[in-house]
């Protein structure tokens, strides 16, 4: 299978099994999404919406569709994946591209908890409290992977910074070096292992606990989820991380296989993952 890679959304995008035209379309798709949803491009639609002083603002159809899914993700995860944490991430110090981020002796600004229920979207009309700053990157990258995969006419895969969706079957290496066969759907990994920085001597990362508005304190360092598509896998991984000790059971109730790595590289799996790893039993 031929593979190509390019950079977008601050990570490496790897595409397998694409023709030249498909590859070009996928690159275009990622760059378009970045132009619309980046927190770090001043002219992005996300930043224009966040800068808007009024409560009511008209957004593009792509923005409205993505926000609808982000709100749905918030509802289905009990508010764990919250699209209203833009100001909180900036308060924690994540206010520029991660490559440009450096440790800052100044303490983090006071956080503000998530408020996704205050968002009202009717068609392309968005109404939100003026102090809310949206951040849709909890779903944008995974949605882009799923949409990119749909552009492939034959079997192949799309991976964005390790969030991988495929058509067909593929053996995939997990963060600790183990390998599993992904037969259908997607695998995504979330955690605090990579995007970390210091603010006022306190370790910060990008996975925010919505009720407190502070970086989540989780016993896990990385969580890998297996979903029917990249969005499901990514939501599962993030929710599993944010829920901490309750993560494995929460994902078991939704029949989602997940694997949890502690900071000391101890691997834990939920019941569904263990059933999937038995040779003759698939967890569907």
């Amino acid at each position: 299978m031929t593979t190509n890679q390019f950079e977008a959304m601050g990570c490496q995008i790897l595409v397998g099994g694409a023709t030249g035209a498909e590859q070009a379309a996928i690159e275009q798709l990622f760059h378009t999404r970045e132009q619309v949803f980046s927190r770090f491009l001043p002219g992005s639609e996300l930043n224009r919406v966040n800068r808007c002083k009024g409560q009511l603002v008209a957004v593009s159809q792509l923005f409205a569709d993505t926000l609808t899914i982000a709100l749905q993700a918030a509802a289905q995860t009990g508010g764990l994946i919250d699209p209203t944490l833009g100001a909180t991430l900036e308060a924690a110090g994540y206010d520029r591209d991660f490559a440009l981020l450096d440790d800052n002796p100044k303490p983090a600004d006071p956080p503000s908890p998530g408020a996704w229920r205050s968002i009202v979207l009717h068609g392309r009309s968005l109404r939100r409290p003026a102090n809310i700053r949206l951040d849709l990157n909890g779903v944008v990258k995974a949605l882009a992977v799923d949409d990119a995969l749909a552009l492939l006419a034959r079997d192949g895969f799309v991976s964005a910074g390790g969030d991988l969706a495929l058509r067909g079957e593929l053996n995939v290496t997990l963060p600790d070096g183990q390998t599993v066969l992904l037969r259908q759907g997607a695998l995504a990994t979330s955690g605090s292992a990579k995007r970390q920085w210091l603010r006022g001597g306190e370790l910060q990362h990008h996975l925010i606990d919505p009720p407190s508005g502070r970086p989540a304190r989780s016993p896990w360092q990385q969580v890998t989820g297996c979903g029917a598509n990249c969005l499901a896998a990514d939501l599962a991984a993030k929710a599993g991380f944010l829920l901490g000790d309750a993560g494995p059971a929460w994902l078991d109730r939704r029949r989602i296989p997940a694997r949890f790595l502690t900071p000391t590289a101890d691997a834990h799996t939920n019941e569904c993952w263990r059933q999937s790893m038995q040779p003759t039993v698939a967890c569907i």
Partner: protein
Amino acid sequence: MSRSKRNRAKHRAAISKRPAAAGPAPAAQASARSGEGRVQPARRRAQIAKTTLAAAGTAVFAAALLFARVTYAGHPKQPLHPLAAPPRFVQVVRQNLLQAGIIAPADAPAGAATSVS
């Protein structure tokens, strides 16, 4: 004075002129007969008047109802439908985002990797 009132006045005058002990005069008897003859047409006219008034009242009420339906903003002008969100919104909301994929033990060297981005 209308004709019926004049007739009634004449009838009362004739009765008052009649001697008390005497029986009814032949003229009075004739007048009474002709009075009975006028009652039936009067009743018919009254019936027609009532029917006309009832029909007119119904027509006015129907016209007012129609006028209200056409002009009053809150009055339903189309058949009523239950309140509901747009179908596309309902479809998106009901879709379960957290659906599982399928994994199995590895059977070959890895072709890709998942990691924290």
